[in-house]
């Protein structure tokens, strides 16, 4: 595998004049060590070089962000990495958004990996520029390069006091060979200007003035809006509809039947249905309401999520597919001094990003050009190519800002709808999903039931644990009828239980997927950690011990866990176990920090309590403490939340803080309110009145975030704040009231209890 610099001269942006510019790119993903050797320089004349950074004729540094921006501040963090190493002046950079293109390497913005994947290679791009600029200045001055240094968009020769701006070196740098990476010296951590503390987000002005371009904001000449009525049950197809009634609505220009989706696997393919195209969104919505679509039967018609709960729970009553096994759990539970079991349930959930899915598509010559709020533009490209039977190179995907993603926008069915309609009608088509469409046609977070059994010895120490989990797997979206849970889901909170106990077993049952199933922020960690971290609180209570002390004892001594030797298949989020070891010392440290910050042992008034949960996910260690207050009538409020995170090196502290705050509120939504139910195969909820998410009135009075200072390589931050929240809250409710919550959402469980 090689990686190379692609140096080209490129048209100066936003002017008609052609001017010199230097473009550096490192298109291939390289995370492994020892890959820096095979570097080739390449001179090209191309206006669409695959660039990460370009030095323009006026000295402006254009940094390409190849990851999707959905609120995690990827565009800012990526710019920080390049600009810091380059010694670019922050006020002289611009950030452009990359098209979908395999030559960027991985662009799938999920799994909290934008920094994990790019921390080193983006700094190398910046360092390359810095080295070339320094050398160019040294050449001009006829002094050794070592006697010059780059600082804030200038190269300085201290001995002579000479200073030259980057802009004045563009022509020289443009004909230089870039250095090979092993010739480069990355800055010392102590010299970082932007990495670490962080910069304000680059899109702030646009966001504050309403100029940020989300997918639905794309305005192209002569475009029409399409609103699509989709089958209420997956795999049903339209059998009859009234196109003429829709066309009678002023502004409606066309009615188009979408290709039906009638077979598993559903993949990312559009669901089918009937599209109404109009000159404006309102007319399209009015037209759609006149369609009166009749739908065929579907093999999913019999799906009832209430009845399905029994199926899931029965799945946990017998041995399942084994993921972790060590010792003899059955014997240990039988001989334990005290044993306990509990069952937990988490329903289907919808990601419900604030921006409903939207995409625009048009045909330019033979190319389908798409603007999409996608987390994964290469998936848009491949899906559209396959769906429309065109070569992928004829699908050009622009990535807009995303009004939230949370996993929904990893699945670009909406972009394929726009592309189909553009190709079919020859028009420029903007597909707009209604909120009702978003709630009813998601790729849902799966529904799950879990059963845990634990045993204590006479001293109140955990000695045995069995965790069974049954849920429809996301694999069924890609593999018709798949029911066996893969490691990619079992690894998230099931295979990675960090307890130093001799007897442990983790198993999964099998269940069919009857709605489209997909990722949602932190994925299977949500239900696994809710169950497992709640159960640890139950076991601590059974032992009559302090929850924190019980957890620390169960985690055991500081060590790096070798999961393979512990009978676990845990794959460590695909990361190298030497680069990202599972370190129980770091796990315990965040547990101690969050609880200490919260004042773990302080006296609280009646009806108030503190609860904690701790988990490592996406390679970061997070502990969350929630303080809850429950009134006599069962009303709940959250005076405070304390989060401690060890994510290794952080690029932007305030963005990490923001992610922990947001992840906690995401946790409040799913813990308190959110619930997708299915009746006769159709989703019963439709909008924010019945699919409830947290509002400001649900928000904690304060969320205190403690970020561990660490020199370890960076880990994920977008998702790991979510898993500990719900169990910490429910453990706090137990501490406050003695009521154990084993089913989400909490909804009116406390109020019912209060009035009973």
């Amino acid at each position, binding site marked *: 595998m090689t990686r190379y610099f692609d140096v080209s001269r490129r048209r100066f942006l936003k002017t008609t004049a052609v001017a010199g510019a230097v473009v550096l790119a490192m298109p291939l993903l390289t995370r492994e060590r020892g890959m820096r050797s095979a570097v080739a320089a390449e001179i090209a004349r191309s206006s669409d070089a695959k660039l990460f950074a370009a030095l323009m004729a006026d000295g402006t540094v254009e940094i390409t962000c190849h990851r999707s*921006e959905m*609120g*995690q501040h990827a565009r800012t963090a990526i710019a920080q990495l390049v600009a810091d190493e380059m010694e670019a002046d922050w006020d002289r950079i611009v950030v452009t958004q990359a098209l979908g293109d395999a030559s960027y390497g991985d662009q799938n913005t999920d799994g909290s990996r934008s920094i994990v994947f790019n921390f080193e290679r983006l700094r190398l791009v910046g360092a390359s520029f810095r080295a070339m600029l320094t050398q160019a200045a040294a050449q001009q001055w006829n002094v050794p390069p070592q006697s010059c240094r780059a600082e804030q968009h200038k190269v300085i020769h201290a001995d002579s006091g000479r200073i030259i701006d980057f802009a004045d070196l563009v022509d020289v740098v443009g004909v230089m060979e870039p250095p090979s990476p092993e010739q480069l010296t990355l800055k010392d951590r102590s010299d970082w200007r932007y990495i670490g503390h962080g910069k304000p*987000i680059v*899109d*702030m*002005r*646009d*966001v*504050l*003035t*309403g*100029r940020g*371009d*989300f997918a*639905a904001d794309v*305005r192209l000449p002569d475009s029409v*809006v399409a609103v699509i009525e989709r089958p209420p049950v997956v795999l049903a197809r339209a059998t009859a509809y009234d196109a003429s009634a829709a066309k009678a609505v*002023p*502004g409606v220009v066309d009615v188009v039947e979408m290709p039906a989706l009638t077979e598993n696997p559903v993949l990312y393919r559009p669901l089918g249905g009937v599209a109404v195209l109009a*000159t*404006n*969104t*309102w007319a399209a*919505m009015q037209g759609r309401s006149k369609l009166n679509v009749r739908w065929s039967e579907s093999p999913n018609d019999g799906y009832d999520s209430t009845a399905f709960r029994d199926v899931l729970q029965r799945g946990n009553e017998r041995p399942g597919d084994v993921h972790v096994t060590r010792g003899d759990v059955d014997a240990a539970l039988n001989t334990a001094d005290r044993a306990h079991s509990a069952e937990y349930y988490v329903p289907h959930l919808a990601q419900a*990003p*604030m*921006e*409903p899915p939207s995409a625009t598509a048009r045909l330019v010559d033979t190319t389908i050009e798409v603007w999409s709020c996608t987390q994964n533009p290469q998936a848009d490209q491949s899906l559209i190519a396959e769906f429309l039977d065109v070569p992928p190179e004829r699908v050009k995907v622009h990535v807009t*800002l*995303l*009004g*939230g*993603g949370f996993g929904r926008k990893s699945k670009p069915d909406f972009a394929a709808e726009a592309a189909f309609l553009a190709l079919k009608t020859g028009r420029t088509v903007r597909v*707009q999903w*209604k*909120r*009702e469409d978003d709630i009813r046609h998601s790729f849902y977070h799966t529904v799950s039931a879990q059963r845990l059994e634990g045993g204590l010895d006479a001293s109140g120490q955990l000695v045995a644990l069995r965790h069974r989990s049954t849920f429809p797997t996301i694999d069924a979206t890609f593999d018709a009828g798949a029911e066996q849970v893969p490691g990619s889901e079992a690894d998230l909170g099931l295979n990675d239980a960090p307890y130093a106990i001799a007897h442990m077993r983790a198993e999964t049952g099998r269940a069919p997927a009857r709605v489209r199933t997909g990722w949602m922020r932190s994925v299977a960690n949500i239900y696994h950690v809710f169950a497992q971290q709640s159960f640890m609180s139950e076991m601590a209570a059974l032992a009559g011990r302090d929850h924190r002390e019980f957890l620390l004892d169960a985690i055991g001594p500081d060590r790096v866990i070798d999961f393979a030797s512990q009978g676990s298949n845990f794959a460590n989020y695909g990361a190298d176990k030497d680069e990202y070891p599972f370190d129980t010392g770091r796990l315990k440290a965040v547990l101690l920090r969050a609880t200490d910050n919260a004042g773990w042992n302080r006296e609280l008034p009646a009806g108030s309590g503190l609860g904690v949960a701790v988990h490592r996910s996406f390679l970061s260690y997070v502990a969350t403490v929630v303080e809850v207050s429950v009134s006599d009538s069962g009303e709940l409020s959250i005076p405070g939340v304390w989060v401690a995170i060890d994510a290794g090196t952080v690029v932007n502290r*305030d963005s990490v803080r*923001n*992610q922990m*705050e*947001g*992840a*906690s*509120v*995401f946790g*409040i*939504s799913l813990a308190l309110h959110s619930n997708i139910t299915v009746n006769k195969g159709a989703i019963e909820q439709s*909008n*924010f*009145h019945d699919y409830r*998410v*947290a*509002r*400001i*009135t649900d*928000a*904690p009075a304060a*969320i205190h975030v403690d970020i561990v200072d660490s020199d370890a390589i960076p880990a994920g931050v977008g998702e790991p704040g979510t898993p500990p929240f719900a169990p910490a809250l429910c453990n706090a409710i137990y501490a406050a009231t003695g009521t154990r919550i084993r089913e989400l959402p909490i909804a009116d469980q406390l109020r019912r209890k209060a009035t009973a």
Partner: protein
Amino acid sequence: MQLIINGEKHELDADPTMPLLWALRDLLDMTGTKFGCGAGLCGACTVHLDGKAIRSCSTPLSLAAGKAITTIEGLSSDGSHPVQRAWAEHQVPQCGYCQPGQMMQAAALLADNPTPTSEEIDVAMAGNICRCGTYTRIKAAITELATDAMESQP
């Protein structure tokens, strides 16, 4: 009909039942006002009508015609409105999609009541959903403006 938006008059030939949101976004290409739910449930589409915060997704053109409409584009074009400045200072936005609506709601609140209490802030902002969960920052930004107003009172 005539719409007066950010002080500028626009003549529109449109269905009077069309919600103001779609006239802004589709007929006038003013895309700063966002679509979130279409049912007055999330506040992403909040604009001012004669100074009051309203949900443009649920307000027909017939009710908006002739009245003073302020959108995010009119709050200030350079981000200099105190609410925008407070949002920047507190680094409120994550994805930013709901924030035009949040800021319009906050600006209307503060224009009406420059020194709202914590409870008054919650009541005023309860209709605006932020799925990214920036509520504590939204509240901190508004609280700071309220505190500033309190301190500058004679």
